[in-house]
């Protein structure tokens, strides 16, 4: 190694030491860096649950026969519905839905048992609160299936299995019980890591400018590239530690299965973190004040989360937005983590996402360095 190279390494090392000291000087920021991600994952891991179970149900049973009770029991014993209120006034059903105490309301008409045994196909009413369209769709589907099964059983007692009955057997791969948590917790890891990477870098340069230490850096022998490296390496290390912490919580606390290899996951995390950090640095070099950097980061983060496929499937977005998601590093990272965790996929299946993420990391770093040079020479 030439003397120049050694000197450059030495300068970067010094810069890293300075950055680390600055990062850890305030004990409160240590808490933000290492405790906050864990708390966040634990809280959000419990929150990200779209499984429809124990739907609050209000019941008005005008019939009050063993048959009508059997219908209610069929709904509740499935585990999908839970009776929270019973009454004999139909008006109460509306009130229960209005107040949000119940999401579905069942009304069994008088004469239900009589019509059932006479083969007259009694009509049972189900009112569904459509505010949450997702839950409503799923709950409605469960109710339809349960009532159809019950009806088939009732009529087969009389006539034997009627012709034309179809039995749909469903089998889900990768996640047999269709638990949403297993799908969502890996995504929460991605979101937390992105948030923390941005938080650590978005103010890095602009603060030096506001506090006036940017001039000092300017007269130091460090080049723009060395400065960027000196700023990124310590923060990347912190972000990797955060990633390890939250991943451990996901595995140990939430029992999310990790079917793929840890090495692939680490590689993906490293690429993603560098992409996130360089975005933060870019924001920092473009902004004039810390407040502006804060706003810019905010402006970036919400779209990044919403257009990532974390909360909303990308396939259902309009064409234009689907294309926009391609520019979102979080989208590619989420595809990678979900595939590694759930499907045990490796680089052969995920090379497109890996190269995209790698490209973004490189381009982001180059762009941040270039912007930083501009800032320094001004």
């Amino acid at each position, binding site marked *: 190694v030439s003397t120049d190279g050694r000197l450059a390494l030495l300068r970067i090392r010094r810069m890293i030491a300075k950055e680390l000291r600055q990062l850890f000087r305030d004990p409160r*920021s240590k808490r*933000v860096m290492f405790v906050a991600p864990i708390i966040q994952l634990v*809280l*959000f891991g419990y*929150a990200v*649950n*779209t499984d429809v179970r*124990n739907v*609050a149900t209000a019941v008005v049973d005008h019939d009050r026969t063993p048959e009508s009770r059997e219908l209610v029991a069929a709904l509740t014993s499935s585990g999908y519905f839970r009776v929270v209120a019973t009454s004999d006034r139909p008006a109460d059903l509306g009130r229960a*839905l*209005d107040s*949000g105490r119940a999401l579905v309301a069942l009304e069994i008409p008088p004469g239900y048992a009589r019509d059932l045994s006479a*083969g007259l196909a009694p*009509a*049972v009413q189900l009112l569904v*609160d459509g*505010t949450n*369209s*997702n839950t409503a*769709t*799923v709950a409605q*589907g*469960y109710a*339809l299936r349960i009532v*159809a099964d019950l009806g088939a059983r009732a009529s087969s007692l009389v006539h034997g*299995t*009627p*012709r*034309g009955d*179809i*039995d*749909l*057997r*469903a089998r889900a*791969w*990768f*996640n047999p019980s*269709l638990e949403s948590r297993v*799908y969502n917790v890996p995504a929460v890891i991605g979101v937390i890591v992105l*948030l923390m990477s941005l*938080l650590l870098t978005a103010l890095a340069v602009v603060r030096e400018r506001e506090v006036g230490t940017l001039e000092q850096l300017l007269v130091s022998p460090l080049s723009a590239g060395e400065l960027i490296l000196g700023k990124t390496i310590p923060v990347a290390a912190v972000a990797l530690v955060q990633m390890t912490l939250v991943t451990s919580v996901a595995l140990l606390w939430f029992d999310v299965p990790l079917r793929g290899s840890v090495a692939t996951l680490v590689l993906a995390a490293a690429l993603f973190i560098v992409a996130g950090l360089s975005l933060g640095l870019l924001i920092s070099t473009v902004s004039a004040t*810390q*407040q502006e950097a*804060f*706003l810019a*980061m*905010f*402006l970036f*983060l*919400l*779209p990044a989360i*919403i257009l990532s496929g974390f*909360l909303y*499937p990308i396939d*259902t*977005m*309009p064409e234009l937005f689907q294309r*926009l998601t391609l520019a979102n590093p979080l989208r590619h990272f989420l595809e990678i983590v*979900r595939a590694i965790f759930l*499907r045990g996929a490796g680089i052969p299946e995920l090379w497109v996402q890996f190269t995209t993420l790698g490209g973004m990391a490189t381009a982001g770093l180059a762009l941040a360095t270039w912007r930083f040079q501009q800032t320094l020479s001004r």
Partner: protein
Amino acid sequence: VDLVRLRAVARKEWTQLRRDTRSMLLAFVLPLFMLLFFGYAITWDVRDIPLAVLDQDRTPESRALVDALMASGYFSVREELDGAAALDQRLVGDDVIGALWIPPGYARALLAPERSAEVQLLLDGSDANTATIALNYADAIVVRHAARMRIAERSGAPPVVLETRTWYNPNLESRHMIVPGLIAVIMSIIAAMLTALTIAREWERGTMEQLAATPVRRFEVVLGKLLPYVAIGLFDVAVTVVAGWLIFDTPVRGSIPLLGALTLLFLIGALGLGIFISAAIKSQVLAMQIAMVATYLPAVLLSGFMFDIASMPAVLRAVTLLVPARYYVSVTRGIFLKDVGLEVLWPQALLMLVYAGIGLGLATRAFRKELAA
């Protein structure tokens, strides 16, 4: 509280804010932009679920079943498979979400008495949400298809009919649930963001001593700083509500004055929280980090906007009580979609009032400590 001094502080804050063109632009334009952006982008309506079909029966009956699935609009056949081996391969790729397998003998079993015909639906469970919805749609379609066949063959009407009716959002359009929730989420994030730096900035720039030297009381400073932001917030909500109504046809069925009053309560609480963070933590960097961590993801994930609070564990449900967005999401959805008033929303109103009181109180206390230091 002296009104003259209060007005002076509010005017000073407003002037400072107005000079910062970029922040002003963001405060006024950002919410509308986000509503438009996300209103168009987000939908949960699952349509055209890509399916592979393996029909080993190849009878008019089996084709009728596939047609029934396609005709619903919820599924589309991407691929016709010709062997069971291909079926197992199919799901590992990501171009289909499920595969329908009609085994040989389906039509025979269907027409025979005492037997029911079996078909299999294999789903890619790695996206549990879409898979659950797909399963539900398929199930409902198959149940209806079987019932229709029975009627056609006069082998008896279905034994029980379940008539479902959906309230508040009859077509189950996810947009109607998203737009009101989105307004609440956007506003709670913006509120914290606008005020999180307001006191830390004075501190870092050294104008805090000047503020301390004026005869203004602490509470007046906090309230005076709050007022311009409350005005901006109210304006933002008004614009987004009108935009949601005009552009996305989100109905506003309830009382608008009530929405205004509850919005005011919510804003005071959320802005007060931002001022508290800013006053308690003198550094802009740390204040920003804490504001972000404490408000951003909680507003999205713990507010009921995305995930039903009722299905969270009890401890977490208690934690959501600390998230102001939670109350406001119930308020906007209740007023927009359900046409409910205070008779239903009073717990939210009461808790937001408490929140606003605590927010202002904490901010004033944190501020007092600093002036003494």
